[in-house]
């Protein structure tokens, strides 16, 4: 009988993968569900096991199943050799799309648990040192060196410490966390167990947004399996270490992706941002020292421990070490996951991997790093993906999401949307964000309506200054970034005469 792999990933399912799987079963095939290979424009992307490899079939519909099983359909060849994948360096995503995400034996066969085993044989301090050596920086967006955070938590003295995984992936244009968890959940579990060991935490929480029901199910199943196999619980991998891991579901609040607001939410409170200090590493969840890392940060840890920090640090550029999982989204011909070392240029990602826009029209703008990230024009495509280089360009790498727009985009509308999104998702604690976001929408409406556009853009500039410098967290502090970058690069969209006034130019 033929074995076929049909992705169970939410993206694949959203375009009919479940129906395709059912059709294969009806057709007598053995159906196995993998994660997505990340070549999302090809979903549902079905793979048929052959003697020479896994033959791929793109955009499969139930009606195509008969031909595929009969061997009469045209395929993509062995997927592992597909240039789009071959051009990547998958470290964190190495197993995603390859194995059955719930098959713990397959996980181990593909190198799983090696990092944890090695870590458990080391001192906690050495584990922290290994992470420090890897140069890993927080993948959630802020890019804070993971080793420093781990060290702070490990050195905080407390009866109880926590490890929290921020899986509140709310930025539009990002989906890497979700795909990792749906495609290879044990990697995250292993990363959290290593982190818990390193910092001395006995409990872990994964805060997942409720918009990710597939991931929640996958994670819960995998955690149960990990308990059954002794990788969680009172004796992790026979080491005597105790670590309990819980999944907590958010409730529709973007701000809960901000770490302190996530902690408030985990405590069962309104997800309002906390003022810092104290930092969570010293006083976090329920006032205890808490390590908060993003999914991809924690998912990078097993490899760092398995292969050594140096191996990871060997990848990348400047102070941006290792790989980043970029996500190509929006109006893009070849959208999906591209895991490559830092240093690749924005243009290579958009044009080479992404193959330009889906509509075939010219690219006009790219937003990098989510709704709080800057809009960049194609003339900046030479920028290397590097935290510092982006910061210098008034932009940010963030979580590695890249959203492409063609030339039909109205950048004034997008700038307005940035304020609108902030108004909808602000926690409301600090004044610049709470009131400023709404005033931003109103003022931008006047600009769009042609009502004293110069004066109102000057007001927007003042507002952006107040929000940037006055806000409590990145929500209010960075909302000006898309707004001001749009005004800077596309003034013609804001002013009928095509020129924003000098004073309005940030």
């Amino acid at each position: 009988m033929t074995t076929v792999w049909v992705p169970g990933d939410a993206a694949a399912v959203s375009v009919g993968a479940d129906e395709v799987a059912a059709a294969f079963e009806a057709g007598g095939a053995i159906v196995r569900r993998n994660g997505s290979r990340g070549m999302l424009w090809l979903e549902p992307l079905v793979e048929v096991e052959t003697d020479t490899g896994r033959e791929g079939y793109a955009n499969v519909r139930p009606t195509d199943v008969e031909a595929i099983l009969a061997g009469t359909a045209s395929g993509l060849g062995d997927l592992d050799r597909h240039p789009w994948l071959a051009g990547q360096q998958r470290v964190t995503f190495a197993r995603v799309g390859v194995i059955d995400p719930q098959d713990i034996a397959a996980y181990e066969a593909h190198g799983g648990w090696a990092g944890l085993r090695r870590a458990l044989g080391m001192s906690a301090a050495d584990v922290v040192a290994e992470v420090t050596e890897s140069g890993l920086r927080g993948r959630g967006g802020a890019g804070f060196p993971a080793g420093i955070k781990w060290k702070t938590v490990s050195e905080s003295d407390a009866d109880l410490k926590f490890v929290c995984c921020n899986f509140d992936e709310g930025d539009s244009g990002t989906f890497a966390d979700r795909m990792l968890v749906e495609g290879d959940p044990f990697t995250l579990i292993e990363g959290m167990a290593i982190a818990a060991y390193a910092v001395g935490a006995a409990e872990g929480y994964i805060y997942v947004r409720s918009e990710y029901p597939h991931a929640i199910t996958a994670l819960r199943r995998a955690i149960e399996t990990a308990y059954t196999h002794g990788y969680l619980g009172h004796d992790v991998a026979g080491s005597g270490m105790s670590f309990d891991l819980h999944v907590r579901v958010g409730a529709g609040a973007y701000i809960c992706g901000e770490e302190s607001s996530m902690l408030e939410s985990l405590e069962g409170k309104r997800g309002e941002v906390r003022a810092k200090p104290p930092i969570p590493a010293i006083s976090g969840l329920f006032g205890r020292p808490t390590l908060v890392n993003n999914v991809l940060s924690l998912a990078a840890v097993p490899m760092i421990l398995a292969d050594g920090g140096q191996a990871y640090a060997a990848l990348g550029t400047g102070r941006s070490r290792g790989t980043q999982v970029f996500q190509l989204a929006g109006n893009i011909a070849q959208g999906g996951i591209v895991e490559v070392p830092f240093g690749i240029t924005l243009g290579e990602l958009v044009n080479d991997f992404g193959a330009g826009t889906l509509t075939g029209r010219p690219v006009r703008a790219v937003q990098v790093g989510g709704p709080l990230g800057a809009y960049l024009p194609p003339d900046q495509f030479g920028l290397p993906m590097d935290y510092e280089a982006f910061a210098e360009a008034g932009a940010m790498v963030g979580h590695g999401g890249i959203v492409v727009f063609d030339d039909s985009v109205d950048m004034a509308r997008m700038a307005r949307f940035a304020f609108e999104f902030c108004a909808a998702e602000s926690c409301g604690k600090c004044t610049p964000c709470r009131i400023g976001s709404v005033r931003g929408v109103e003022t931008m409406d006047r600009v769009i309506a042609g009502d004293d556009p110069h004066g109102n853009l000057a007001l927007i500039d003042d507002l952006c200054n107040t929000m940037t410098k006055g806000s409590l967290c990145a929500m209010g502090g960075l909302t000006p970034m898309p707004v001001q970058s749009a005004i800077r690069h596309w003034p013609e969209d804001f002013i009928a005469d095509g020129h924003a006034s000098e004073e309005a130019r940030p």
Partner: protein
Amino acid sequence: MEDSLTTTAGTPRAPRVRAIAEQHLDLRGPLLPILHEVVAEFGHVDRSDVETIADVLNLSVAEVHGVVSFYTDFRTEPPAAHHVALCRGEACQAVGAQALFEEVTAQHRDSSTVEVHEVFCLGNCALGPSGTIDGRLRGRLNAESVSTAVAR
């Protein structure tokens, strides 16, 4: 409304909510899991549920009320029969989500059986416009495919 006092099975609501809350008492910070379960079972959080949960968790009514009102998932009115949530995030906007949202909203503006909401990102940003229809994630949506799915 009938379901504010009784479950669909006809059992009184308050004891059931109390039982749900009590089942979560061993969790740290159990309020959100409890509210999720109440919404899953009853479709919304009623004022009486707020009082019951506050009592079980030994919180003030005001605190629970504040939490319920913060999160969009914890709706306080019963849901319509069909629920469409369309993504208005930038990635989906890049492929026409704004027009889709406006069209579908207009189509169901006066409907008592279909409610349309905006969401910001469902993590399906390469296959937009995305949305959920009665809880199921769908990609590459257009007005026609939304209508077909709602009718199903």
